[in-house]
């Protein structure tokens, strides 16, 4: 028994003693809430010997239908009286205190006549209090006080029961874990005020959809869509506040439900929100109860708070997983950058990963050569404007930032707008130097859409900046310095020879770039021209990871006719052509060859264009070598070659010899030779040079 129930008993007992009455408490249906207390002889005799009879009389009493709020006298049998005192409880409902019994003076015989004859009534009736006007008022006043006290007890008791229910609700939420279905089913089974529940959430930009329903006879509403303002649910989307509707069956807004044969009598809807606004609607109600008690409303609100918290928890968990994924990815990227001290790879990682992340339309790394006023752009996609102009603008902007007196942190990314779309720019810095800028074009039009990516991109750019600087300080620049040192050593002994070497390097670089060769190959050919006087074996010792020695060796074999021109690597071919050209022996060299097309023809063309107008630099749109490679790839695809032959031809065009192709494709040299022969047959060409030339011709004629 709870503390409050004990108090009720105590009060009943004290008042009964004081007024010589016995008391019981019932609800509005006559069901006993608190049993008999007191020593009234007539009440107790009737209660103990004829209990059912007395309680039946109390149950059947018409007193419940009277709208009294103060105690009154009521006759259970003719001449036998009790006081009925309403105890005020929740929202208009009452409990009832019955205090009796008493008889009127000189009515003992009359009373005895209608009672059971087995009992010695004379003694009982002698001790029964007599109802006199004076006593009557005293009793009524006393029972009024008792009813008031009992009312306070019951309200308190009810409050405790509500908190108990709320506690149970929290416990169920914890036990149900992520299963909203289990949680709602328990709620419905333990709270009869609610017979159904449901959740609606956004389905399209303007429409909401009932995604889940729980309880009986509510299934037809599953999948129902509605717009803001439509019916009860749509109204909440507009008002943004919870509502509890009563007598819903008479409300015209219930038409949406009636159409689906769902007929609630009471209905509530509570918006579930996060920082951005409404994320879902929780609704529910009853088919039998026309209204909600205050406690039920509070319980529904508690339920909504729990569900809302659950949604936020899910959202945060999801966000946490994403952040964890990003962090893991960032670690992998950092590991890759640290393990690959390769300038080109780092730039590629920056370009590709940023495009991956943003799902953008364009990404680029704009790099400025610290020794000259030139920039390099490594890009994917297009910024929807001239790439060169854009790159220049970006560098100007960041150059001014680095000298600006504003206290903007140098590595802070910025957002620019280009053609209405946002472009994120993250400087690649090392200390106070800006080495370049990572630019990512997005599809987003508003800042908040890209904000979540900013920190990741900034971190990527910071790691990228440091990695680039380390590579520059390390291998790349060391090799450049050593090549420079060895080549300048020649100047000390033979000034003219040095000039020729520099000329050779310049021509070799320009021509190889024009051929669309990868930058590493261009670098090898250029360096081979600068170091041609050294023996390949010496160069192999000095430069372990480059092909400079091989280019010189194979190139010299070509010059001395010790190797087959058509089988040679394009790097060696270019080296040989440049060397013989500077010796003034190009024509003689070429005349001795059977074929004068392909790379040779293009070399002549290059010489005609550049060496005649040596100082004139063409001002035209920048040629994008990878576009060129791309279009060559697409040209290759147009040829009637098998996919494998296409790959082989692609690599042939990149200047790889049969051995290198075999290594790249993990096939034998013999197989490569077979593929190459078939390619020659299908293209109707005699050798590599013709094959390359044909592809370029096709490309130009189609482009």
């Amino acid at each position: 028994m709870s503390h409050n129930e004990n108090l009720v008993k105590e009060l009943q007992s004290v008042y009964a003693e004081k007024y010589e009455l016995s008391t019981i408490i019932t609800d509005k249906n006559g069901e006993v809430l608190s049993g008999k207390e007191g020593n009234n002889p007539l009440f107790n005799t009737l209660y103990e010997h004829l209990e059912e009879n007395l309680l039946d009389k109390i149950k059947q009493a018409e007193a419940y239908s009277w709208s009294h709020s103060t105690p009154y006298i009521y006759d259970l049998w003719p001449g036998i009286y009790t006081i009925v005192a309403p105890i005020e409880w929740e929202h208009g409902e009452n409990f009832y205190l019955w205090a009796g019994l008493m008889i009127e003076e000189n009515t003992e015989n009359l009373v005895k006549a209608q009672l059971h004859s087995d009992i010695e009534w004379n003694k009982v009736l002698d001790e029964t209090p007599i109802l006199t006007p004076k006593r009557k008022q005293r009793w009524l006043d006393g029972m009024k006080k008792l009813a008031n006290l009992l009312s306070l007890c019951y309200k308190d008791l009810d409050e405790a029961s509500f908190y108990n229910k709320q506690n149970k609700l929290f416990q169920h939420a914890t036990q149900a874990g992520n299963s909203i279905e289990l949680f709602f089913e328990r709620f419905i089974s333990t709270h009869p005020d609610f017979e159904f529940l449901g959740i609606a959430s956004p389905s399209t930009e303007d429409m909401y959809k009932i995604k889940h329903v729980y309880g009986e006879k509510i299934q037809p509403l599953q999948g129902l869509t509605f717009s803001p303002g439509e019916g009860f649910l749509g109204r909440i989307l507009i008002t943004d506040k919870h509502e509890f509707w009563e007598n819903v069956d008479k409300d015209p807004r219930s038409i949406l439900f009636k159409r689906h044969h769902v007929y609630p009598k009471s209905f509530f809807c509570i918006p579930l929100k996060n920082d951005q606004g409404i994320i879902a609607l929780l609704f529910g109600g009853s088919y039998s109860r026309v209204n909600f008690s205050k406690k039920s409303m509070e319980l529904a609100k508690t339920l909504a708070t729990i569900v809302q918290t659950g949604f936020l928890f899910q959202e945060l968990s999801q966000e946490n997983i994403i952040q964890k994924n990003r962090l893991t990815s960032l670690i992998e990227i950092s590991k890759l950058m640290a393990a690959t001290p390769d300038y080109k790879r780092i730039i590629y990682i920056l370009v590709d990963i940023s495009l991956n992340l943003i799902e953008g339309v364009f990404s680029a790394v704009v790099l400025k050569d610290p020794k000259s006023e030139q920039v390099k752009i490594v890009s994917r996609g297009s910024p929807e404007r001239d790439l060169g102009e854009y790159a220049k603008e970006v560098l100007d902007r960041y150059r001014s930032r680095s000298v600006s007196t504003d206290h903007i942190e140098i590595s802070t990314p910025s957002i620019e707008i280009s053609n209405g779309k946002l472009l994120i720019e993250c400087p690649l810095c090392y200390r106070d130097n800006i080495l370049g800028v990572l630019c990512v074009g997005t599809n987003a039009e508003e800042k908040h859409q890209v904000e979540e990516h900013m920190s990741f991109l900034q971190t990527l750019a910071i790691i990228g900046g440091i990695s680039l600087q380390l590579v520059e300080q390390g291998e790349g620049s060391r090799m450049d310095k050593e090549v420079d040192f060895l080549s300048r050593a020649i100047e000390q002994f033979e000034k003219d020879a040095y000039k020729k070497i520099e000329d050779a390097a310049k021509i070799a670089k320009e021509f190889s770039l024009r051929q669309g060769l990868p930058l590493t190959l261009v670098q090898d050919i250029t360096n081979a021209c600068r170091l041609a006087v050294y023996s390949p074996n010496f160069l192999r010792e000095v430069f372990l990871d480059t092909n400079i020695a091989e280019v010189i060796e194979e190139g010299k074999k070509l010059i001395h006719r010790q190797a087959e021109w058509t089988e040679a690597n394009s790097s060696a071919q270019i080296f040989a052509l440049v060397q013989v050209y500077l010796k003034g022996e190009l024509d003689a060299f070429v005349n001795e060859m059977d074929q004068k097309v392909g790379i040779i023809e293009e070399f002549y063309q290059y010489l005609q264009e550049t060496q005649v107008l040596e100082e004139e630099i063409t001002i035209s749109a920048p040629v994008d070598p990878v576009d060129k490679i791309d279009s060559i790839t697409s040209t290759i695809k147009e040829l009637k070659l098998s996919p494998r032959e296409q790959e082989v031809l692609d690599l042939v065009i990149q200047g790889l010899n049969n051995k290198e192709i075999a290594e790249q494709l993990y096939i034998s040299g013999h197989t490569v030779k077979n593929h190459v022969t078939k390619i020659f047959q299908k293209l109707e060409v005699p050798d590599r040079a013709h094959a390359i030339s044909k592809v370029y011709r096709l490309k130009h004629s189609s482009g």
Partner: protein
Amino acid sequence: MENKDLLPIQLECTMLFQTNPFMVETVEGIGKLLNRSYDELVPILNLLVKQGIIQNLGDNENPRYRYNEPAITTEIDLTGTVKKA
């Protein structure tokens, strides 16, 4: 991005192709290298093709993917003229 859960696989794929720029591989082959299922990889590979990070050297029925190097634009003179590569 919408498919936030796919980001790690997307980055893994990108880094695999970057590390092996000459590799030409089928979906199954990539699956073995990354220990990923066919269904996980197909949407990612399609996305990477769309972004131009890889290219399909085969056809739609028998796709074979290879890394597609980014465009390296030739040197541009900051004074305004553009040099041809």
